[in-house]
């Protein structure tokens, strides 16, 4: 759009090839841990088709949300945004299919339904990586004049945007553990007072990471005008979102079917440790909010 005016067609193609390669690289960076997770392979046939489609649809919505908040092409229309996100999912499917082929997880002797289910499930984390590659991982001089890297221009991201990104970060980190057995064991075996301590520790650590630890993109303790733009309320809101993301993930992988409420709460809190850290990392990544002050340092 902007760059196409002066550049020759050839360098245009080279630019596009770079974009695609970055998308594939980012997709693999985020997707590989789950491509190597046995439970992900099994869930392709343990989950019914409608649930896989539903999860794929939810991740599509997340990709749209993330793109809208942090997209690297600010000037695109809604239709363009949507088409870009379809392309993100498409690239993810292709990357996931090739990776599963190379890992020997799909092939001629695997049922078609099983193979497609595996491709669709593994495409979800890959799609998040592709989406990230489009915004966070682009080099600064990629598109001349265009500002890249969200930490620099985070003021454009409002409180709501920060919470959307917090949900994305929570999903990204918790997704790596959600399909495994560990959250079930941790949640079922923990006593109530242990769970209470875990909640307190999660809140304290994420609060400290975002507001005290002086990470790039971290914030000071000044409050903004928005009621959610206050360190305590933002931390609590992000934690609530993290717990919600954990619950959705556990439901996705059938961990809540026929399980008692207390066991579900235990699992949600344990998986919420990862989710809340992911949410904190996500918020650091976008910086922003009225009280952002360190991103330029």
């Amino acid at each position, binding site marked *: 759009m902007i760059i196409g005016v002066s550049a020759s067609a050839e360098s245009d193609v080279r630019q*596009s090839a770079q974009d695609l390669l970055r998308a594939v690289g980012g997709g693999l960076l985020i997707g590989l841990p789950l491509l190597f997770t046995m439970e992900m392979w099994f869930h392709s046939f343990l989950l019914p088709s409608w649930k896989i489609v539903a999860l794929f649809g939810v991740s599509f919505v997340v990709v749209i949300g993330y793109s809208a908040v942090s997209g690297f092409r600010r000037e*695109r229309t809604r239709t363009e945004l949507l088409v870009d996100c379809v392309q993100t999912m498409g690239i993810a499917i*292709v990357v996931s299919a090739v990776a599963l082929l190379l890992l020997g997880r799909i092939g001629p002797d695997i049922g078609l339904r099983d193979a497609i289910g595996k491709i669709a499930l593994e495409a979800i984390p890959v799609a998040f990586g592709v989406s990230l590659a489009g915004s966070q991982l682009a080099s600064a001089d990629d598109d001349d004049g265009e500002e890249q890297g969200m930490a620099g221009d985070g003021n454009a991201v409002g409180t709501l945007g920060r919470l959307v990104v917090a949900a994305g970060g929570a999903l990204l980190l918790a997704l790596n553990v959600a399909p495994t057995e560990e959250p079930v064991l941790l949640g079922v075996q923990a006593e109530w007072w242990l769970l209470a301590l875990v909640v307190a520790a999660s809140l304290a650590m994420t609060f400290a990471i975002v507001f005290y630890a002086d990470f790039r993109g971290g914030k000071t303790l000044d409050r903004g005008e928005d009621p959610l733009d206050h360190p305590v309320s933002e931390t609590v809101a992000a934690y609530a979102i993290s717990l919600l993301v954990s619950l959705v993930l556990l439901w996705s992988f059938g961990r809540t079917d026929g399980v008692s409420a207390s066991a579900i709460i235990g699992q949600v809190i344990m998986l919420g440790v990862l989710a809340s850290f992911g949410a904190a990392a996500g918020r650091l990544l976008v910086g922003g909010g009225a009280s952002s002050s360190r991103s330029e340092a």
Partner: protein
Amino acid sequence: MRQNWLEWLALVVSILAVVGVVGFLLVDGVRDEGRPPLPLVEVRVAEAYQTPHGWLVPSTVTNDGDSAAEALVLRATAEIGGEVEESELTVDFLPAGTEVDVTFGFSAEPDGEVSVQVIGFRLP
């Protein structure tokens, strides 16, 4: 909005991939009647071979149901030298519509038919 052939190619391939995967799963989801696992075992007696540790009979297990079976236990029964002999094995996972190759072992070549019984399985 797409500037060159490579971007167009990426877009077309992407749309095909998304439509293909989602379409396939949707059609499969509609066809899925929620039937329970239906394990079928084809015993290939003709392909049986001898080893120092017994006579091995390759078999193929398929699942004609709509849902997967976990920890499927199969028991094959055959008559060998006038005596009934049993061979038992477990299939970890039997997804719907998938073939799993297994092998039953006997002490010697079975006299006639090898019959297979499903002992049980877990619904995942």
